[in-house]
């Protein structure tokens, strides 16, 4: 995704992801790294059977960065994307998977029960836009989710990493997915950080009831802690700045946000001696 602003607001995907934009996905190492990390997490959330080669679908596969992660895990994959430029880059990069030029909002042109799992990195939010006069986002979502439900085998999962603009978009997406028959819900990694926060819509397709995996960096976020915090705030003011308590609290906060933090030790926040003048 471009560093500034939402690409969805600039142009439809098949136009926004032109040759220049597509080239970034092979040259910009930061973008590549982010895509890779997101794909690895999505693959983890798919919870595929271990040591078994699977047949996966990558929706919005782009230049195939997410597909590389699937290839590295010994899976075979098929990707679908609406941008010809991005797919040309994918073919140039000699990706292992096969790619199809298609619009997810028109439904997936695939046979029922084909895939053992579906991943999608930063693509689903594009469905929320009406790029043509005849587009209705709600209907396009429903068509997409209905065909998706047919395409994946029973008991499998579809994991979408997405950047929703607001809660209304998220609600509509989830609602349409449920209407198509999916169960599941949203997983939020690092909910306390605005930068590291990542959302994954994890959908289950039939089979035995499954519990939603927990997001990363949420271990501290149980209601008990929140309660304790308000209680402590009541009977005690904020700790004095640069005191040990203050430092510990700051480090705790950083950890919750998933940021790099030095481990606590006996030296943490200790007064330094020997500076007499």
């Amino acid at each position, binding site marked *: 995704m471009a560093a500034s602003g939402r690409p969805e607001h600039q142009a439809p995907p098949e136009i926004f992801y032109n040759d220049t934009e597509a080239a970034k996905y092979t040259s910009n190492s930061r973008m590549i790294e982010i895509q890779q990390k997101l794909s690895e997490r999505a693959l983890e959330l798919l919870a595929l059977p271990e040591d*078994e*080669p699977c*047949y996966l679908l990558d929706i919005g596969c782009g230049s195939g960065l997410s597909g590389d992660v699937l290839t590295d895990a*010994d899976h*075979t994959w*098929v990707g*679908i994307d*609406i941008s*010809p430029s991005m*797919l*040309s880059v994918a*073919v140039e990069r000699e990706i*292992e998977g*096969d*790619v*199809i*030029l*298609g*619009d997810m*909002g*028109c*439904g*997936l*042109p*695939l*046979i029922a*029960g*084909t895939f053992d799992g579906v991943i999608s990195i930063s693509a689903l939010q594009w469905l929320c836009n009406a790029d*043509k006069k*005849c*587009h*209705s986002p709600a*209907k*396009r979502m*429903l*068509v997409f989710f209905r*065909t998706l439900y047919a395409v994946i085998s029973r008991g499998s999962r579809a994991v979408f990493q997405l950047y929703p603009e607001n809660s209304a978009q998220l609600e509509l997406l989830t609602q349409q997915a449920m209407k198509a028959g999916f169960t599941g819900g949203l997983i939020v990694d690092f909910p306390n950080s605005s930068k590291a926060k990542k959302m994954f819509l994890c959908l289950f397709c039939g089979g035995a009831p499954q519990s939603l995996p927990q997001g990363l960096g949420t271990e501290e976020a149980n209601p008990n802690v929140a309660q304790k915090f308000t209680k402590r705030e009541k009977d005690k003011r904020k700790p004095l700045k640069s005191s040990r308590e203050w430092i510990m609290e700051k480090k705790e906060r950083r950890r919750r946000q998933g940021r790099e933090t030095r481990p606590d030790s006996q030296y943490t926040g200790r007064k330094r001696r020997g500076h007499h003048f």
Partner: protein
Amino acid sequence: MKLLTHNMLTSNIIKGVTKGFPLGITSTKVEVKEVDFNPAFVVKTLTKIDYPALYQAAKDIGYADGLPEKLEDNIKENEELLKKLHNALLQVEVIEGELVCPESGRKFPIANGIPNMLLQENEVENVAQ
């Protein structure tokens, strides 16, 4: 495009098309790219694919040599056959060609190895006009 992908593609998202499978296939340029042989994956895949459609597609593009018209039950032990199936499924790639919907006759061009399955809004079912 690999023949495995061809075996998974349908045109049933077109308005009025019910099955849309298998898509007709013609080719003007085919390449064979080496892919690591994974017998477990081939065996697993064979349970999912429509074999007659694969055989027909391979025949249409001229790469059906050594493929049986029908699959026997004991494919697991027959490594030679598995390798041939692996070749047909994953190594043979149509670079330039065309897919044709069996019901509506709608053509989907394949260029640079990528099938173009994009449809106009008015061709699609269930989408607001």
